[in-house]
């Protein structure tokens, strides 16, 4: 280890003040602290510090995404094979899936990372670990057929306008990965919506479960329509359906969620709020629907839960501590409204097939307002108590 330390130190000389690579010091610093713990000590009290740092926390979110990533790679290949009618082979599916997915992830990390470094260099601050999460989150919510240049433009927009203009990680109002996806969604709708983009095979059309449900004519059973299209609760829960790369498997999201909750990296309140709001709204549609209403209303709440991007969004996006509400009560409200809005957009608004991205972005904007009310309420209660004691 001494050898490595010395080599890095030697390399560091090039980045010192007055040396040719001075400007790129943040890059060196990032590599240095990536390989070796910083080794700084504390000059003033408290003299001891917790072993956890932001690198650890962020890397845990990435670890939590591994089930979704693996499932995504496999499923992209699996859908291609199914579409071709080819014989199924596990490793074949993994290989063809990886060939589609890995480039998207690489492009996302490279293009986004470039901006991240650029801002760190110009602003002279350290490179933040937050991007490790944004880069992969973004890749996992894209369709497998996305042109790579669009993926690159999207993440550039997300990093710059979703995060850096607010001051970087920790200061952003919106979740940068969702900003990036929303940008692609509105800028290049043809490549990110419709029925042709979800299976990585040219010219192949297969509607996603949500599209099938939305298109079911009045008076017909939506569950039956889904089953006829080849979707049942089991394969939607496991994730063997077309969709964005990482979002199809509710099971993989659940695994990620358990990991995040056990390690206390994510707030259980936000997720619980999401699920509660989601079930409430879908139950309202389900139980209180009139006879002549949209067929989609009749979709049972538990089917709703495993369709589209809700599972992924509520586990990995709604729990983002920076863009979500920062109070305990606020997290409940914030999550609940995300759940309600997601179903509302999904079912009642024919313009958008899925609502989770928009509802989280919408609630990101409202999170400070929710916090404001929670804090004001706290202040009022505190003052009341203070004056009673006085």
């Amino acid at each position: 280890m001494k050898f490595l330390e010395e080599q890095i130190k030697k390399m560091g000389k090039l980045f010192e003040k007055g040396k040719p690579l001075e400007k790129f010091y943040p890059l060196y610093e990032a590599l240095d602290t990536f390989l070796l713990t910083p080794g700084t000590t504390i000059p003033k009290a408290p003299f001891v510090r917790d072993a956890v740092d932001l690198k650890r926390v962020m890397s845990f979110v990435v670890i939590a995404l591994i089930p979704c990533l693996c499932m995504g790679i496999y499923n992209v290949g699996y859908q291609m094979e199914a579409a071709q009618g080819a014989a199924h082979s596990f490793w074949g599916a993994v290989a063809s899936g990886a060939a589609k997915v890995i480039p998207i992830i690489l492009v996302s990390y490279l293009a986004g990372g470039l901006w991240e470094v650029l801002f760190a260099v110009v602003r002279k601050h350290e490179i933040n670990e937050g991007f490790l999460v944004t880069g992969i989150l973004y890749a996992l919510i894209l369709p497998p057929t996305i042109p790579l240049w669009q993926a690159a433009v999207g993440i550039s927009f997300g990093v710059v306008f979703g995060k850096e203009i607010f001051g970087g990680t920790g200061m952003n109002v919106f979740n940068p990965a969702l900003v990036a996806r929303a940008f692609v969604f509105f800028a290049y709708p043809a490549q990110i919506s419709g029925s042709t983009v979800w299976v990585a095979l040219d010219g192949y059309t297969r509607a996603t479960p949500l599209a099938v449900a939305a298109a079911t004519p009045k008076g017909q059973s939506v569950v039956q329509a889904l089953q006829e299209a080849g979707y049942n609760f089991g394969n939607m829960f496991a994730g063997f359906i077309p969709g964005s790369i990482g979002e199809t498997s509710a099971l993989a999201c659940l695994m990620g969620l358990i990991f995040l909750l056990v390690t206390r990296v994510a707030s259980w309140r936000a997720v619980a709020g999401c699920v509660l709001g989601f079930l409430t709204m879908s139950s309202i549609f389900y139980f209180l629907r009139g006879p002549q209403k949209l067929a989609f209303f009749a979709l049972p709440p538990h089917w709703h839960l495993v369709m589209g991007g809700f599972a992924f969004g509520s586990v990995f996006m709604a729990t983002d501590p920076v863009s979500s509400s920062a109070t305990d009560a606020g997290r409940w409200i914030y999550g609940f409204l995300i759940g309600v809005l997601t179903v509302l957009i999904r079912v009642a608004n024919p313009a958008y097939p899925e609502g989770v991205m928009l509802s989280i972005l919408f609630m990101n904007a409202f999170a400070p307002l929710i916090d404001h009310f929670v804090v004001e309420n706290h202040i009022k209660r505190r003052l009341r108590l203070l004056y009673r004691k006085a």
Partner: protein
Amino acid sequence: MAVFCIKQGKDIRLKGAAEKEIVAMPLPSKVAIQPSDFRGLKPRLCVKVDDVVKAGTPILEDKVYSPIKIVSPVSGKVAAIHRGEKRFLLEIVIEADGRQEAIVFPKFSKEEIRQLTKETVEDLLLESGLWPVIRQRPFSRLAHPEESPKSIFVHAMNTEPLALDVDFILRGREAQFQAGLDILKKLTQGKIYLCAQEGAKSQALTEAQGVEIHYFSGPHPAGNAGTHIHYLDPVHKGDHVWYVEAQDVLRIASLFLEGVYPAERIVAVTGEGAAKRIYAKTIVGAPLSLLLAESRLEGMRCISGSILTGKDVGPGGYLRFYDSQVTVIPEGGQRKFLGWLSAGFDKYTFSKTFASSFLPQGEVSLTTDKHGSDRAIVLNSVYDRLVALDIMTYFLVKAVYGEDIEEMERLGILECDEEDFALCTFACPSKTDVGAMIRQGLDLIEREG
């Protein structure tokens, strides 16, 4: 009487507790007075180098309110006056002559003490230089004699890592402690709150007269003065409470009973770097070298106070005025390959991100390692579990960043002190010094009025 069970917070079970055995130390050859110990004091020097002083001779006085004095704990001569940048007074070192000649003040019997007036008590405390043992909230600064506190808190417990067991050192000194409480009672129209650890056995506490005793249980910061004040008599804007350490109540009593400046202090010598971990009976301002004799101090951090709120004074430094603990822990600074990826069976953390979080933990050895770099606050939920006050820490810190005084006050900053947030600073993954932010806010409010 009430028992308060504090749920928030956490005890750091550090290796190196002191044996409960009081060992009298020889009189040190040198002591120091460090003006920075006294928050709110604008120091003016009353002595020059080589001046001869007695125990009780004023060394410093307050420029704003001159009756407040800081006095020499020993007799001898002024050996050195160390100054820092802009002639900032760092410390005044006094060489002891070993004779312990003292300025004589009037003394009283226990019965006479009960008849004393507020003015006599105030005058004697100020004159003798013992007044600074009384501090006030808000701002944790020296109490001002012309203000009347709505209550006085006697702080008879300490939950900081390896802290002195106050209950233990009060045993057998019931009468003296009671005399001290009687004297304090003269200073306020309000109540005296005596705050002790639940299960305290010393009769000095359980049998105390004329005060309201309350017990606190639970993890640190259950023993902080801030926690006690918050639960019993919270301060709002415009009023004050005063607080005194239990050991200093003993000193107040001995001033009135014996008529000389009482310099005695029992100090817990703790931490794995200390060779002899004992309760040392020494005097205020004693050098650490006396307390840590025989300890090997290379690669060690010598702290006056605890790991959470102490000050790095170095092996050649001196005990701070209010400290009753010395902690010696190993220095950090080792760099580890891919440390952030390790499973972490040996890491100490409040989070659940290391293997050790899921295993039973005994006493731990901690170094001064920072374990990370500074970042913007991302995980804002870690604070709430660690603060015993009903305060929204994250929003308070944001208000301080924004220098929004009105918002800070509404969020309750006047009840806070940096020590109440030491655990937040410890646990923050973004390595934000939450306590320092709170202090910054308090300083701003004090400055702007």
